[in-house]
């Protein structure tokens, strides 16, 4: 049973959003890291890049697949988790603790389109 955290928003492509005021941390969920297997590389974007809801902003490579990371919300990147450059396996260790990017949200109403913890857990069950 994949770990799901209360209070976060979730997308159908298994990304999560952790809101803090006008900012948000974005990463992949526990379900995603488990499905991918051992992560060997994270293709990170750069600070100041724009992300758009529904558009890919990077990729996660594991031994068996390379998966795009889709932005659940739009905004400007203010921080990138560079630790993932040398230690991509951090995503397997704790997907929620090890976020991928931090953005300044441009449209908070986009959160309404995402699932809450309960809905996401049910979504994963299917």
């Amino acid at each position, binding site marked *: 049973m994949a770990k799901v955290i209360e209070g976060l928003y979730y997308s159908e492509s298994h990304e999560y959003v952790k809101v803090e005021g006008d900012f948000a941390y974005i990463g992949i969920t526990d379900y995603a890291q488990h499905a991918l297997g051992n992560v*060997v*590389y994270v293709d990170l974007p750069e600070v100041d890049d724009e992300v758009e809801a529904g558009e890919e902003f990077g990729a996660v*490579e594991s031994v*068996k*697949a*390379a998966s*795009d990371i889709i932005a659940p919300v739009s905004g400007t990147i203010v921080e990138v988790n560079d630790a993932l450059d040398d230690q991509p396996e951090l995503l397997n260790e704790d997907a929620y603790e090890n976020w991928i990017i931090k953005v300044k949200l441009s449209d908070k109403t986009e959160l309404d389109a995402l699932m809450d913890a309960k809905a996401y857990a049910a979504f994963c069950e299917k």
Partner: protein
Amino acid sequence: MHKYFPHTEEDLKAMLSTAGVDSLDALYAEVPEQIRFRNDYQLPEEMSELEVRQLFEQLGAQNQQLTCFAGAGVYDHYTPSVIPQLLNRSEFLTSYTPYQAEISQGTLHYIFEYQSMMAELTGMDISNASMYDGTTASAEAMMMAVAAGKKQPRFLVSETVDPKTVKVMKTYAHFHGVELEMIPAENGVTSKESLEMQLAQGGVAGIMVQQPNYYGIIEDYSGFADLCHDSKALFVINGIIADYAVLKTPGEWGADIAVGDAQSLGIPMQYGGPYVGYMCCTEKLIRKMPGRIVGKTVDNRGQRAFVLTLQAREQHIRRQKATSNICSNQSLMALWATVYCSLMGKQGLKEAAELSYAGAHYLCDRLLATGHFQLVYNQPFFNEFLVHFVQPVDKLMEWWQKNNILGGLKVADDKLLIAVTEKRTKEDIDRMVNLLDSFANFAILTDNG
């Protein structure tokens, strides 16, 4: 039954019986009657081995052996006889590029050696397992630059790049939405001023230049890498790899990607192929490079082992997000180039290059001395040069061919691109020039007025 088919009548009967039909024809029952082929195949009668040999001897006799002074991307360098001997081994000749890679340690090992040599020759960090040829490798480099860039749609190519290569790149660009633009040339070399202006307009993912360029000229690429990097564009050099034995390497020029054809590494001209494309890049770009990459690691017993690595780049995993659809390499020719480099070594490669250079300059000097030729561009050249002839070159080419010489490549009515390799002796060169003495007579006699 034909002697090369292993199945007997009994075998066929048994197979048909298992398939539940009584004849081979019955297997095609699904094919509509109106599209079935009922005519005569019009194939010639079978021939005995002797007759086949005679047929090919007759065909071969129609060829005229010419001493080659033509280049334009393909060079008549010497192939040491050890190479075809080794490559004719069935283990090399018939095996395909590995998919269950780890079981083919020998193949992976030689590809690893190949990669190491290409990286060393070009002065770059990494090489892939090879591409089909230099032309597609150039197109792939363009796609790689566009993929690595942040959606910049422009790619610039110098006018001094081989037009055949440019044509293929234009095809790739057209279907991938890349805006391919030419960088103008001035006096036979890439115009740095134009490049600066084109880069300043923004949106350039990368540029590609050639070394030596199409006219055989050794271009000075000082400052090109910096110009590109300041505009966040990649710098790609397409080069005649054998020449890097004596020329400044792409690595030294600050290139991000080095591509080209490795035919110059002892692969015979062979009427156009097969050749092999090489592709090398900096470590930073390794995850964007297409093609196979062989890596070296250790197994669970600590023994050295070779693997296909970084496979998550490839299109069978990345699918439409992959930089390229290539999932193969040109293994046999890559092996050819590898054995050539091993045999020649640094010293041999240097000598072959120096001899080619010397021969070309000797020929050029002698031709210019006749007063009938002029160098089109007053630029330093390697083993190939472009000359203007006082008359249309067709007649001259005809005269030379009558005397078993391929004088060069006609680039315009009055221009000839001439190449010399270490295979051309002083006698060959002198003979070619001395034929000019009797050319005038030939021209008059065969002139149709």
